[in-house]
């Protein structure tokens, strides 16, 4: 189905099933531990052996020699894979560094060997007997130092965030120089780790020249292609199966070492091998969100109208990598005639930087939305009012291009009302409860909506059971449930009459899970297949396709009505279709918006920050399932709390690695950090987005929330911190003196 004109009324608009807060259909499996993840496929094949990964001990250099003698002789060892015996491997399209290093080492903890043994304990013990002699090379590990010589570089997150090396509209310098009120401030965000709870894991099985991988991967079709490319085998010889994924956040968008090493290990061992990347290796072995150093300049009239805005960002990556596109949202967020964005990319020999939830916008808004708060203060304006005054309904760089929907003002106004924003003291550092300084903060959230082709197969059997098959993944997003809701709505059945089969590369290729594009596109693909199936059924029955109704398990037209199962007959009917998009994404700017409101308490003695309240008001098109969508938003707000308050990969600039590479030392929020969270979805449908009239919310909840926390801290303390995370040491000595 080609979607090239705005959607009219369609069966989804009935909202009998779609748009309702149904419990997840996979809930009973997940809550009873009976949903099998990649490493848990005991039933699919016998005789599974265990692989254990050895990571490089240096960040850059070469392997002089590897001594495997002791490891090979260790009890239970079946095979050891290194670059010496793995055969030729080709870097995948989505990888920057090789997934098996040697002799060249590109980053710390890059895989250098896989030890396969009869048991996990034996593989782990033998892995410690692999002796590697390295020649350490000189590496570049200091972002600030390397940015001084870094070239201007454009980039595209691949997730809807992109910018050229330099982008100019009007005359920024002139307008900034003549603006009566200006801000020129620098902000930094550190490297972040996805830290999903399920480590990367795969089980590899070879049958002749055909490889099947049970793996934990967000993007099945990309993964299939890159596994084939890396191993140098035809794509049709690779199958990926990924029914349950224990979190991804971008860390499982691409094939990682577990999959490739499991495949190589299984080949070497001549039997199935499963591999999980051990937690202490995850942070340096896999990808991370790169650190940024940003400069923002804003010029405005005394009345608070922005006349000049510039956002420049620098980040680093391995040779061949790309920039963190932190300036992207600034091209679209606020009005202003004179604009400048630019990005620099330094070469660093740290582990590979890549997409993490809301790449670009997450760190970009952490800076921009502090800058807006600072500017509001300079203008003597309320920060909500300042944002509203600079709203735009058109792309500020291309004014002929309108937003398909843009309800940012309503998000902010409703949020201010519901949150009790009027209670905020405009003078920071003035509200106190015992030892605690109290502050309120606001920030706007912004994230683009991406349109991606997505296919599905939908069938009905003689019992009237609807089965949807697609390679779409559910990484906790609720895909199983919203796909079932879509099919139920379209085919006129109840949710329990729908079976959803996900995550198998033998199924039609979906949009996959990334860039908050999964929900809208994958359900639109199911919609397309359902439309085709409805037409086919109507045709089979001789009904007029224009007035056929699918409801209550029946197909009806005029006075005629027949049970759905009966309509398809004993053989059932199955069709496949895809949603494909025309140029509505070009004609209109499609984005999602949020207003984030936060209340914090900062201890006046110790500087510790504790979040007391959080509210997000979101405008993101039709909400397919308010329950699972709300969970997406609160989860993202939680990740934003981590980014604001504690998350930072500490770089050892001498040895070139992230030092705090486990879950004890890379702190992410725990229960005690997160208060009750409120989410309000504005009533919005966006017919320009898709037949579902939905957009994504999974990343919107993260966008801006970090700055809202930062602004609340400033409101509490009067001390502005521009260097994330805002740990107590950054403001401790500037807090009010205690008596």
């Amino acid at each position, binding site marked *: 189905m080609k979607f090239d004109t705005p959607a009219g009324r369609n069966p989804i608009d009935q909202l009998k099933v779609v748009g309702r807060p149904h419990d997840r259909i996979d809930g009973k499996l997940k809550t009873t531990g009976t949903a099998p993840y990649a490493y848990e496929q005991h039933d699919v094949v016998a005789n599974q052996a265990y692989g254990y990964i050895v990571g490089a001990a240096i960040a850059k250099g070469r392997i002089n020699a590897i001594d495997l003698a002791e490891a090979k002789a260790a009890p239970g060892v079946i095979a050891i894979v290194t670059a010496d015996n793995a055969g030729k491997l080709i870097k995948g399209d989505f990888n920057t560094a090789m997934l098996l290093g040697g002799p060249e080492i590109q980053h710390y903890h890059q895989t250098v060997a896989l030890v396969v043994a009869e048991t996990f304990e034996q593989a782990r013990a033998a892995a410690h007997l692999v002796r590697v002699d390295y020649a350490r090379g000189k590496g570049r590990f200091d972002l600030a130092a390397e940015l001084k010589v870094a070239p201007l570089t454009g980039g595209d997150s691949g997730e809807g965030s992109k910018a050229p090396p330099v982008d100019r509209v009007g005359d920024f310098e002139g307008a900034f120089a003549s603006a009566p009120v200006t801000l020129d401030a620098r902000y930094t965000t550190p490297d972040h780790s996805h830290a999903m709870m399920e480590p990367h894991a795969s089980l590899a099985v070879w049958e002749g020249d055909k490889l099947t991988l049970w793996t934990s991967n967000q993007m099945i079709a990309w993964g299939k292609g890159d596994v084939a490319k890396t191993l140098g085998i035809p794509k049709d010889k690779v199958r990926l199966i990924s029914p349950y994924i224990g979190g991804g956040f971008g860390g499982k968008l691409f094939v990682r070492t577990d999959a490739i090493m499991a495949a190589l290990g299984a080949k070497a061992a001549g039997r199935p091998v499963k591999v999980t990347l051990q937690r202490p290796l995850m942070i340096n072995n896999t990808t991370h969100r790169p650190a940024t150093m940003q400069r923002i300049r804003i010029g405005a009239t005394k009345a608070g109208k922005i006349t000049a805005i510039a956002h420049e960002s620098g980040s680093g990556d391995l040779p061949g990598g790309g920039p963190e596109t932190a300036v992207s949202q600034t091209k679209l967020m606020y009005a202003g005639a004179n604009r400048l964005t630019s990005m620099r990319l330094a070469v660093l020999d740290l582990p590979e930087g890549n997409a993490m939830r809301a790449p670009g916008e997450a760190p970009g808004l952490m800076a921009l939305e502090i800058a807006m708060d600072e500017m509001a203060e300079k203008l003597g304006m309320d920060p909500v009012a300042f944002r509203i005054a600079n709203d735009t309904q058109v792309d500020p760089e291309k004014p002929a291009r309108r937003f398909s929907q843009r309800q940012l003002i309503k998000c902010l106004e409703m949020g201010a009302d519901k949150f009790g924003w009027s209670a905020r003291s405009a003078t920071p550092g003035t509200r106190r409860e015992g030892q605690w300084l109290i502050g309120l903060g606001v920030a706007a959230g912004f994230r683009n909506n991406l349109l991606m082709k997505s296919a599905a197969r939908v069938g009905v059997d003689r019992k009237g059971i609807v089965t949807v098959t697609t390679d779409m993944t559910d990484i906790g997003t609720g895909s199983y449930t919203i796909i079932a809701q879509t099919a139920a709505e379209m085919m006129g059945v109840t949710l329990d009459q729908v079976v959803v089969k996900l995550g198998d590369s033998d199924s039609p290729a979906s949009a996959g899970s990334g860039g908050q594009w999964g929900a809208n596109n994958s359900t639109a693909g199911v919609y397309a297949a359902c439309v085709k199936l409805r037409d086919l059924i109507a045709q089979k029955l001789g009904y007029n396709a224009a007035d056929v109704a699918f409801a209550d398990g029946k197909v009806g037209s005029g006075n005629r009505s027949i049970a759905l199962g009966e309509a398809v007959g004993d053989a059932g009917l199955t069709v496949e279709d895809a949603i494909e998009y025309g140029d509505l994404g070009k004609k209109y700017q499609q984005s999602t918006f949020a207003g984030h409101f936060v209340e914090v308490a900062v*201890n006046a*003695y110790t500087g510790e920050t504790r979040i007391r309240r959080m509210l997000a008001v979101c405008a993101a098109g039709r909400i397919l399932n308010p329950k699972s969508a709300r969970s997406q938003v609160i989860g993202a707000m939680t990740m934003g709390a981590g980014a604001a308050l504690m998350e930072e990969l500490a770089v*050892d600039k001498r040895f070139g690695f992230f030092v705090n590479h486990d879950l004890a030392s890379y702190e992410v929020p*725990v229960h*005690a950090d997160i208060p009750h969270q409120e989410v309000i979805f504005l009533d919005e449908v966006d017919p320009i987005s898709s037949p579902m009239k939905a957009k994504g919310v999974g990343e919107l909840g993260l966008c801006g929330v970090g700055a809202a926390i930062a602004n609340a801290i400033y409101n509490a303390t009067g001390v502005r911190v521009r260097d994330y995370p805002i740990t107590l*040491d950054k403001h401790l000595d500037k807090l009010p003196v205690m008596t």
Partner: protein
Amino acid sequence: MKPFTYQRAKTPAEAATAAARTPNAKFIAGGTNLLDLMKLQIEAPAHLIDVNALKLDKIEDSNDGGLRIGALVTNTNLAADARVRRDYGVLSRAIVAGASGQLRNKATTAGNLLQRTRCPYFYDTNQPCNKRQPGTGCSAIGGYSRQLAVIGTSDACIATYPGDMAVALRLLDATVQTVNPEGVARTIPIADFHRLPGNTPHIDTVLQRGELITAVTLPKPLGGTHIYRKVRDRASYAFALVSVAAVVQPDGTGRVAVGGIAPKPWRVEAADADLPRGAKAVTAKLLAGARPTEDNAFKVTLVERTLGAVLAEAKG
């Protein structure tokens, strides 16, 4: 994890003898730190002696009006004991400030005393570390040291003792009771139990080979207000940046010990006398001679401010 043999000991004497007789043997009780380190081969015992059946899991009143805490009393049970909650509140508070509910259910009194540093370079076997591999150098010095010690360090090691319970025990002048393989018992004041690194940072405590902790004893209660204030980046399940244990009497006198800043629970008895004069005076004595790094210099300020918070709380 290297292969090891395993035995269950039935008496303290049997455990200590087995430890002396078997090369490279270790006791295991809760195992929450030992197994963590064994998986990384930072610890690699050839033989484990399970001491959980030694019946050292009682908390008893002692003759001098204090308490005798069996070595195997779990953190949870110690923190929840009615006498501890009533008379040694700072100990209860320190314990529940540490780790998680699950870990406290397994971790024992003796094992908690013996937990090793959380220095990230100690935990990364690719990196030089004098505590892990004597003579290889300290990669924390000049590296990432935000969590590490500011006082009591040496040029060989700046690792921090990570625990909370021991900070309260140090405040309370607890003693550690042990038995050696010859069956000889000894009493070690908690102040002497943990070592400063000097040139031998790989030796954490004064325990001798095969010496088994049997109990920790507390002198009679101090009265006063008991406070344990732990400061960390996230609100729970994190090691201290700084923690302050204090018992403050109604007249403003008392005592104070600090965690998160030194290779052992940090207390300077002479500083206690300055408590009525306030946090600044106490901190000056507590941290005299501190040698912070650029990353952890804030801890000096943080000790003073946290102590200020504690004294304000004590005043009510």
